[in-house]
């Protein structure tokens, strides 16, 4: 074995972003969800104060009947990794952004992730739009508020947003925006559209 990871036991110590953070701060989370390779980690990295980190979980029974490993006997755990970043909002608030795989076999993870989340950004690749149908249905079922952000890959076909809205069967009230997952300002704007949408929902609720 190698010990390449042994340094990780060394405490990371004081980081510059922490200097803003007195005791008493609290965390809040937003989830970025989308198919494989759609740019979730890129988006997280674009707005995060720190390079994206990875947390993982061992999947055991939950994968039974879903993950098929023909010929591999005795393998009853799979590791599912999630990349995340953080944004220090103010002295009392840290926003964590989790990039979550949208594939069906990872859905078991969603319980913990979406519990207490402000909402979600569904990231869409126009070349594989079908991946989003189930994600959107799932979010609606769970009553997780979300906005849809179309990642503008240079080589992906460009469609007018109204056309995409129809293709995604997205209700008029759900914000649909384009964004460049590599661009900080663009990702920030996608997050802002989620927050403004949440304000609208909150206002409707109290009206």
């Amino acid at each position: 074995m190698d010990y390449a990871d042994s340094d990780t036991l060394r405490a990371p110590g004081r980081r510059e972003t922490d200097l803003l953070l007195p005791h008493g701060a609290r965390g809040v989370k937003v989830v970025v969800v989308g198919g494989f390779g759609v740019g979730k980690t890129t988006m997280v990295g674009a707005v995060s104060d720190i390079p994206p980190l990875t947390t993982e979980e061992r999947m055991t029974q939950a994968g039974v009947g879903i993950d098929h490993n023909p010929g591999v006997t005795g393998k009853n755990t799979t590791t599912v990794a999630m990349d995340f970043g953080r944004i220090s909002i103010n002295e009392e608030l840290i926003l964590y952004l989790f990039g979550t795989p949208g594939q069906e076999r990872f859905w078991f993870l969603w319980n913990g992730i979406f519990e207490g989340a402000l909402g979600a950004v569904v990231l869409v690749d126009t070349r594989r739009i079908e991946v989003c149908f189930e994600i959107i249905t799932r979010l609606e079922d769970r009553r997780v508020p979300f906005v849809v952000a179309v990642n503008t890959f240079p080589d992906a076909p460009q469609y007018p947003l109204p056309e995409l809205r129809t293709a995604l069967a997205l209700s008029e009230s759900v914000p649909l925006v384009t964004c460049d997952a590599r661009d900080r300002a663009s990702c920030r704007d996608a997050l802002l559209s989620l927050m403004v949408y949440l304000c609208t929902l909150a206002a409707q609720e109290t009206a």
Partner: protein
Amino acid sequence: MTSDNPKPWEEGTPVPLYVITGGEGSSAKTFDLVTLIATRSAPDPSMQPEQASILTMCEYPLSVAEVSAYLSLPFSVVTVLLSQLVDDQRVEAIAPVPVAAFPDRGLLEAVIHGLRRL
């Protein structure tokens, strides 16, 4: 000492994770990925390295997700370690901002304000 265990040695996990958690796996308290952990006492030399690391790194509060990332340990293993530290009053666990079906307007405005400064 030889073993009759027919299972091949697994390179990826030389130490079973229940060794790190001290054999306890079921008493984990409820931690969210973004529960913040703040150190309340200095590590002492007799502590297990993982727990000592947590006390050092959480001198400034970190989320459970970050602790998991920095220790390269699965989330569920970290929550067991943290449960023990909370029981021993060595760390404080600060629950996330509660988000109801519709989040608080003040919270949303704070986030909007913070994002605009990015």
